[in-house]
């Protein structure tokens, strides 16, 4: 599934648009520990977190993630939005919890394995 198909299928608000909306999402990972994400999330994964600070953008960019979903109503900092826009990282928010949004992604066929 592509990033844009996922955005259309789930209750996600687009804060910053992906560089390539047709990029295939290769998997998903959910964690609020940045080094854990660094070690485990694969390229092209969607990352579900409640961390809204600017450093999430560098993690997503260095790993080549398909995007970041801020779950549980978490709001990105202003600087996070600016950086995500500059780095062309898709930044999405949802009111759904980390568990719930991860489950919905899984239902769409996005798994935790490459």
């Amino acid at each position, binding site marked *: 599934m592509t990033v844009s198909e996922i955005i259309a299928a789930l209750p996600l608000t687009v804060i910053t648009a992906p560089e390539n909306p047709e990029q295939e999402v290769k998997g998903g990972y959910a964690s*609020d*520990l*940045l*080094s*854990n994400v*660094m*070690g485990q999330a694969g*390229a092209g994964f969607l990352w579900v*977190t409640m*961390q809204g*600070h*600017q*450093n999430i*953008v*560098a*993690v997503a*960019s*260095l*790993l*080549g993630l398909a995007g970041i979903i801020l779950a549980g109503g978490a709001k990105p900092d202003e*600087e996070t939005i600016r950086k995500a826009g500059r780095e062309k990282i898709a930044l999405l928010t949802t009111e759904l919890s980390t568990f719930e949004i991860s489950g919905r992604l899984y239902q769409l066929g996005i798994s935790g394995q490459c």
Partner: protein
Amino acid sequence: MITLEMQLDGASFETAGEASSRVKKVLQQIGVPGDVTRRVAIAAYEAEMNVIIHARRGIMTALIYPDRTELTVADEGPGIADISLAMQEGYSTAPDSVREMGFGAGMGLPNMARCSDEFDIETVIGEGTKIRMTIYHEKRP
């Protein structure tokens, strides 16, 4: 050979990741395979974050050869009291304020070791730490 040298400042979370990102971009430009570039990026970022979290300042040097990248991150900081403890996943001396941001989970050094083909730490308590990592550009089997 391409040499990149970047200054790192302790506690500067607003520029965190920029040094690693520069290294990654150069590797992408010269056509190093994606999964190798990714390992360099992870190793560099974890070392960069350690300086920002724990040290006063540091320097990241990347020597990019045709067959390998050598990363050196040397800091002026507290040093590491027990390296084998620091290498254990989950062990961290990071302050609570940093942990709340999702850093300091005790996975930085293990991530660096896992991503690099050669890994070496020199540390002097009260003076600083130097981490040297070599990543070969040949894909891992």
